[in-house]
């Protein structure tokens, strides 16, 4: 049985991926009140873009780049312009329904137009085990951790150290005020969608070697995103990161120590517990009650 340390590291790796997905989800929600129920499928899809590009002859690194670009176009721009914008005038509920339908569409689409079978996906680094402090850790986990950490740090720098990032944060906190201050709110919202597209594409490339590229990956990944975002605090990006990491670690540990039959249940129980005991999440602010 894998040592605790090993489980911890691989849990951190999975958690880092969950964090990326949860951050994208939270950002989009914060700036445009869009609860993207298709977030899981957004993570499932880019892997297929990579595979399609590789089938057409591209080497992995090129296919990955192409996939990120296509994701930005489809899951970022197209999604915002075609799905979100026309629906915003009707309120939150129709948009929620629409993203639920979209998740179905993407899932069935991948199944019909690509394959219903799980597809092997190339790993970032050749599989090997490294000895760290007497425990065996896979290079896979380390590579995932490295990429995820770099992405999160880059995102953090973008949001906190650049003018653009601060404008985006202002838009997220109070779009009316931001508009008055002269911030191009519409463009800021578009940027969050683009950022989300990049995050899900990276997450997809990181997780598909482990999960294999399968049309129904979205089910578990989407749920992980929502749970991570809620655990951490729905209105905080830092919370999404924390939630993702906690979820990944707990999920991995529970898989080893709890019966495999109920493996999927642990995150769900955590979700229900959080909503019962601390609905604003670990880092979230208690929201003003308007109802």
């Amino acid at each position, binding site marked *: 049985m894998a040592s605790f340390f090993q489980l911890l590291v691989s849990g951190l790796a999975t958690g880092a991926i969950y964090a990326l997905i949860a951050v994208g989800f939270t950002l989009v929600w914060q700036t445009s009140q869009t609860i993207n129920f298709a977030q899981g499928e957004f993570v499932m899809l880019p892997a297929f873009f990579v595979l399609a590009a590789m089938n057409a002859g591209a080497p992995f690194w090129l296919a990955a780049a192409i996939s990120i670009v296509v994701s930005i176009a489809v899951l970022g721009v197209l999604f915002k312009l075609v799905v979100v914008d026309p629906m915003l005038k*009707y309120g939150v509920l*129709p*948009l929620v*329904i629409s993203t*639920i*339908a*979209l998740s179905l569409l993407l899932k069935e689409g991948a199944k019909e137009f690509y394959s219903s079978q799980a597809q092997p996906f190339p790993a970032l680094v050749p599989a090997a085990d490294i000895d760290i402090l007497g425990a065996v850790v896979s290079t896979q986990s380390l590579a995932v951790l490295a990429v995820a950490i770099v992405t999160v740090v880059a995102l953090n720098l973008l949001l906190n150290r650049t003018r653009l990032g601060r404008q985006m944060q202002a838009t997220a906190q109070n779009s009316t005020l931001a508009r008055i201050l002269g911030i191009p709110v519409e463009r800021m919202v578009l940027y969050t969608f683009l950022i989300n597209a990049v995050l899900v594409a990276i997450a997809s490339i990181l997780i598909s070697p482990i999960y294999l590229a399968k049309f129904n990956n979205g089910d578990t990944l989407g749920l992980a995103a929502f749970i991570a975002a809620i655990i951490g605090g*729905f209105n905080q990006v830092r919370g999404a990161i924390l939630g993702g990491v906690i979820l990944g670690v707990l999920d991995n540990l529970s898989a080893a120590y709890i019966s495999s039959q109920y493996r*999927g249940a642990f995150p769900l129980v955590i979700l229900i517990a959080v*909503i019962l005991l601390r609905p604003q999440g670990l880092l979230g602010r208690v929201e003003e009650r308007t109802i």
Partner: protein
Amino acid sequence: MKWLAAGAAAAAAIFALIAPLLLKPFGIYLISMWAVLTIAALGLNLTLGYAGQVSLAQGAFVGIGAYTVALLTPVGCPFALAFLAAGALCFAVGWVLGYPALRVQHHYLAFVTLAFSTLVFLVLRNEEWLTGGIYGINGVARPSFFGWSTFKALNFYYFSLGMLAVLAAATWWMLRSPWGRAFVALRENPVRALSLGLDTRRYTLMAFAIGSSLGGMAGALYAPLVQFIEPVSFTLGLSFNLLLMVIVGGSGYFFGPFVGALIAVLLPEWMRVAQGYYLIVYAMLVMVMMAFCPSGILGLLERALKAFAPRGKEAAP
């Protein structure tokens, strides 16, 4: 316009009574399925269309109802009792789920029901000693009432239709009462409703619990209809299907679920040629609908009728 609606409903009712006499057994099975799913959709319409909450667990409640009946009737429990037990159990579970979830905003109920749906599937699949696990439960008996057996397809259809009529009437009566007014208020303007003393949380919770209970009762009828139930039938797929039914038919319209369920039952049959694509088409239809007419088919119909009907009396300024 009210007369038009009444007339259409009457015509549909007559059709529902006569049609099965002209259909082959599979056709009768389909419209029985329509009747059962409409009950579940009616419940979801309460939650979504009237209280404005997204529930992704209606399929799970159908499953709970189905398994309740499938487990109780073989040990001698009369069907009527098992049916009521299914409804009561789902009401209680709905209340327990909804109570914490509805204290917060942000559509948390959607996530909680999503998680619950998955949990239910896991339990149904893993607890073989109770539910038969992956292998499901076979040979669910069709009930008899005072010597009249519903074993024959036609009989079971009239039984389901009767149950639909009873439950729809009960729902109609509830919506005619002050509760119905409260639900409209809840949906149209919850802030104002609160300021008038309306406990929006309590009414929303009630709508969700009753809606879930109807899901359970639909499940109680589903089990004897299909006679073999397995966990796979009650996953998120069914919840999505029911959700789309309510949306496409017209959420918030009383007869929306009837229309939506009809489409959901017939669409796969019409699209037999392109078997795998029916869900894709369905999903695209819903997305297009949400962009242009979120109030579904009945909403479209209402708009069309308003455009052609003579204008009503305008209020003098």
